[in-house]
């Protein structure tokens, strides 16, 4: 059966136009709503941040005011902190020479006497000299000085695994029997040099 559309062309055009108008209105309305929601969200976030910043600013102001009230305590605490940190660092770099001498004495063999000692800080060479009954005792003294660990019975510093003295060297050795008559210590005169392991004697 033949179908004939008798709708006038103007009507068809009007209907098409209305369809497009309706569709575009709906789409733009949906887009507008989405856009409004997005705008609302970002504005809300922005206002929320601003409100939080304002609250933090108020808190900072209150804290600054309280800090100003405590300014005299702050001044004292700064002095306290300054002196404490300075002294702490000063003491940490102070070599306990009492422990150094104690360790040295503990390493002197019974038949060796120490007549002269000379120490200088800053990693400089130290010297010790004296007399001994025989050269083997001087050798024993050198061995004792070179060994690691504590020698003193009541060590003030912990030397486990560490050398108290390094670069131990015999500088001079002379045997003169005439001196044996004048000195009980013996006829062997010696001089030993070494370095103090200052890092091990920091308290």
């Amino acid at each position, binding site marked *: 059966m033949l179908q004939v559309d008798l709708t006038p062309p103007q009507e068809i055009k009007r209907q098409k136009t209305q369809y497009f108008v309706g569709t575009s209105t709906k789409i733009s309305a949906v887009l507008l709503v989405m856009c409004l929601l997005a705008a609302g969200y970002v504005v809300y976030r922005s206002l929320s941040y601003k409100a939080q910043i304002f609250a933090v600013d108020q808190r900072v102001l209150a804290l600054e005011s309280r800090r100003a009230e405590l300014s005299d305590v702050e001044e004292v605490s700064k002095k306290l902190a300054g002196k404490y940190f300075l002294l702490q660092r000063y003491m940490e770099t102070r*070599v306990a020479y009492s422990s150094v001498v104690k360790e040295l004495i503990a390493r002197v063999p019974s038949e060796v006497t120490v007549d002269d000692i000379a120490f200088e800080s800053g990693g400089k060479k130290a010297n010790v000299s004296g007399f001994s009954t025989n050269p083997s005792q001087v050798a024993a003294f050198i061995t004792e000085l070179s060994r690691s660990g504590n020698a003193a019975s009541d060590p003030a510093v912990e030397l486990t695994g560490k050398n108290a003295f390094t670069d131990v060297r015999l500088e001079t050795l002379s045997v003169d029997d005439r001196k044996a008559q004048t000195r009980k210590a013996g006829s062997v005169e010696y001089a030993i040099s070494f370095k103090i392991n200052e*890092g091990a004697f920091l308290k």
Partner: protein
Amino acid sequence: MIVIENLNVKSEERARQVAAGFRDFIINFAIPLLFLIIIVGLAVFVITPVYKSLPDLAGQLESKTVEAASLQAKVAQLEDLETNRGLVTEDLTKLSWALEERDKVPELSEQVRRMSTDAKVIFNSLSYTNKAEDLPAVPVAEASTEGQPISPAPDPALYREEDVDVKIETADLQKLVDFLQVSENSIRLFKVGKIASSFNDTSYETSLLMASPYLNPGFSVYTQTSASIDLKDTKYRDFMGRLDEFTNYAQAIDATLPKL
């Protein structure tokens, strides 16, 4: 002529149709167009600038929160110090005995004499010569551990040191140890720079170069930048406890409290 008139009528008619079509388009699509304009306006003038400002605001909030937290901690610490003001003053007094505001060499000499008495050694002499004025003292050189540097020495610009050359006489080296221990346990601090000891038939004559620190004027600047103190910190309390064990010769010589 008629043809020209007909042509004019046709073109006017067409122009009217175009104008009517445009008018109809505007009327029909007015709402969607308005919506689009609003969308573009919102996007350009509201969403984009506000959205772009959000990270900046978040950053501001974060930094201000950190600032507030740090300030809060600082104020809490100051309130704690305020509550324990007595302890603060006591600690500061102790530290001030240890680190004098000026050289006080005569008092230092008297202190060495008293230390000799306590260590039961014979005090022979003490000599002091003023070093170059207005120059910060160089601290006793940093020691080394078998070639390795030890913990850094404090900044010499913060303090000066007065060197005194002390000569004592001891019966044996153990007495020298005793004297050194006494000097290490004195609240007014000493650092030994040199020791030279010599046996002369009956006793050891020992010469010691001893340095004692005192504050440099530059120290006040340092205090403005130094970190805060926590009175309950174990390391701090141990340090103060250690100072308690030290002998205060300075107070015995001059009971005037040091300048805080």
